[in-house]
């Protein structure tokens, strides 16, 4: 149990996917202009990331490994992810139109969020078991959501600030992300995992 908790803390804070591992940066920069959209994206990503982590684990465990087809990993993972995303979109669309309105536009973006593929690949690299895969996927998503939401609130504030012209927009966003990443270095060594 503690192991799992530590893994979670490690993925959320210490090895934060966005700020430390550099995964999922495009949506991090792209949909962080408003707190509201950031929350929508976070929810969508959390769901997809966890599901993708699990299903890619299954594909890896039951198809690729027995058949020794490691070179097909990327291909099959991305295919699985695309299906998961589409499937999520369908389910959301069917069950909750309001949620769909909130998340709809983000779901297609998630396919090309490298955090999703990254989780799948890292799961294999780190030889996580089933439970660990779930936790890792979920932790990655929570870490992503956490920084995305904080970042978007910061950006809302920066939008009103008197930023020098060339730095307005993406540039100051990057610099803010840099300072966030600097702050997150404070978590280094909190849990020693590798």
């Amino acid at each position, binding site marked *: 149990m503690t192991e799992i908790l530590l893994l979670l803390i490690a993925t959320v804070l210490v090895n934060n996917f966005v700020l430390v591992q550099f995964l999922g940066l495009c949506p991090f920069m792209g949909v962080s202009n408003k707190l509201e959209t950031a929350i929508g994206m976070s929810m969508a990503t959390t769901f997809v990331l966890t599901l993708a982590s699990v299903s890619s684990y299954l594909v890896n465990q039951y198809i690729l490994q027995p058949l020794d087809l490691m070179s097909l990993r990327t291909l099959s993972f991305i295919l699985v992810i695309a299906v998961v995303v589409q499937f999520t979109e369908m389910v959301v669309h069917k069950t909750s139109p309001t949620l769909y309105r909130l998340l709809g536009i983000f779901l297609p973006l998630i396919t090309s969020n490298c955090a999703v593929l990254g989780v799948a690949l890292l799961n294999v690299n780190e030889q996580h078991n089933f439970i660990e895969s779930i936790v890792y996927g979920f932790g990655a998503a929570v870490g992503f959501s956490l920084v995305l939401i904080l970042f978007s*609130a*910061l950006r809302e504030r920066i939008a009103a600030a008197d930023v020098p012209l060339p730095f307005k927009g993406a540039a100051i966003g990057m610099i803010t992300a840099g300072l966030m990443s600097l702050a997150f270095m*404070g978590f280094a060594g909190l849990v020693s995992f590798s």
Partner: protein
Amino acid sequence: MSFFIASSPHHHLRRSTADLMRLVLIAMIPGVLAQWYFFGWGVILQLILAIGVALAAEAVCLLARNREPSSGLRDYTAVVTAALLAVSIPPLAPWWVIVIGTLFSIVIVKHLFGGVGHNIFNPAMAGYVLLLVSFPVQMTSWLPPATIAQELPGFWDSVRVLLFGFTGDGYSLEQIRRVDTGAMLDAVVMATPLDHIKTELAQGYTLSEAKSAIIFQGAAGTGWQWVNLAYLAGGLYLLKQRVITWHIPGALLGSLGLLALIGAVFAPDSLPNVDIHLLSGATMLAAFFIATDPVSAATSTRGKLVYAALIGLLIYVIRTWGGYPDAVAFAVLLANLCVPVIDQYTRPTVYGHHEERR
């Protein structure tokens, strides 16, 4: 006859930003004096260097941004930033350390975000973290307090160490940092109390073993506790002058103290007690001078409490389990990150909106 047009109110409480900043600087005096007493001239030199660089950087930035430089310089915010950075770094760190740190604080953390009032991160602490991460060696080279130091460099020796790395007699910083342990032949290089405890505990020693070291001739580390008490005094002055309210220092010290107490009750052998947490490192400086930075802190009363309690929590967590001995700067930056979200969710209930909230 025509008349002057102005918008109401036509009356103002005459206490400007510059006044506030001056009061902060005044309140820092006891702490700086204590640091000077225990760690020598280095701190004064760092202050001079930092303030000079900060003012120059501020002026250049304002000019580059087509602003009137004099008004920006007269508000003393750059001086406060520089001063807080200067007192946070080891007194005899090489000159370029403070220069890089101050430049980073003023140019990147403050002016790229729009200058005074617009910065979302605490400039001084961001500068400190940059230095800590980039130059860990220099940034952890603290001197032993005067009471146990083999020798404390004088004024000119301090200048030389700062500029060239060696005293007039050719001692390096590394050599100055040795502590006279009396019994042992081989003197040990000085570590700060928190650093010492951290390494010792990591080695598997108990807390009392760690605290038997010479540096703990006092509750929370020789020298360090007095410096902290001096900053506490300055902080109380700020409170009395109503520059700050009790909320931030109260919540910060409260949450840190409470966690330390819980830790000390459950694991007295491996977790430092309340006194160590509150009186060593930069705790008091943080509580009264750094976390209270109005620009980067939460604004509403409830927000301030949450913000400061979060800093306390982070300080405790990072000090106890993290990779860094003192965590003030990281904790403050991490809490800065959360400020907009905190502000968003701790808005006071506006007059007439009580029903809506429920």
